[in-house]
């Protein structure tokens, strides 16, 4: 019986962890999203990247490698600076589209993930 509850708790913990961060394309870790400001809405939710973001949304984005000891220092950057402006660690969405952000360490591409940015009227309030 204890084993059964142990399994249930393990599964629940895994689900909870998964829902609090954004899975990445290469599966080497997770992107962590933190809302700073969303036009026309208040910040809410966890550390997952929202399904859509309005132009003008501001957030912070970090990456945690699956093996942090191997990659203690990870840089996260937008693929195109036409889609995002990054100042003092705060990202601002500039254009509608589906741009990507990527994480690098030691010259290697650890991972990347996509955003879906829409004009403010169309985007879900996050």
């Amino acid at each position, binding site marked *: 019986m204890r084993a059964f509850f142990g399994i249930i708790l393990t599964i629940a913990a895994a689900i909870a962890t998964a829902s609090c961060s954004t899975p990445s394309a290469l599966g080497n870790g997770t992107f962590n999203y933190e809302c700073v400001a969303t036009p026309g809405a208040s910040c809410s939710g966890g550390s997952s990247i929202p399904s859509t973001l309005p132009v003008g949304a501001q957030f912070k984005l970090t990456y945690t490698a699956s093996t942090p000891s191997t990659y203690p220092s990870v840089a996260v950057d*937008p693929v195109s600076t036409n889609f995002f402006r990054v100042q003092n660690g705060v990202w601002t969405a500039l254009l509608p589209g589906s741009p990507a952000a990527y994480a690098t360490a030691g010259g*290697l*591409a650890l991972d*990347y993930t996509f955003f879906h940015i829409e004009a403010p009227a169309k985007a879900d309030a996050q």
Partner: protein
Amino acid sequence: MMRLRCALFGLAASLVACGANPYYGTATVTDQGGDPMAVINPNSAIEMTEGSAANADIVLNSQTGGTMTGDIQSKDPDTLAILHAPRNGNIYVFLAKKAGLAEVVILTNGVEVRSIYATVTPPPGVTESADAGPDGGDAGEGGSASDAGDGGDVSDAGDAATEE
């Protein structure tokens, strides 16, 4: 001593004559991920949309079908960056940084054996003026894209490589 010089001269001359390693054949691309619209084929075309990312497992093959050690690199990383993923050296990550053309080269044993121009197109629905919007100076990127006239060089390069 004279023989050694002749041998070295002959080796250098043969390398120059061949232009590159003559044994490279094709690249095999599998397990492409990321942007589903991206075309990742170092044999014929690489096409991506600005801002997108894709990855693929790419193996370099000799003309006899054997696997070759080598690398795929971008000579214009500000337009299209190509990075390796951890653990598996055959997994390449393609990052379309800005619209324009980027020369992508395949190297085996440190020798450039093939060259192809990758195309990074502006995001759909983004007009040139909007593309140039965020930092103004990017209007010049349109210039790069309009340099597609240089595509003649691209196909020329491809032909030359095919002849190897």
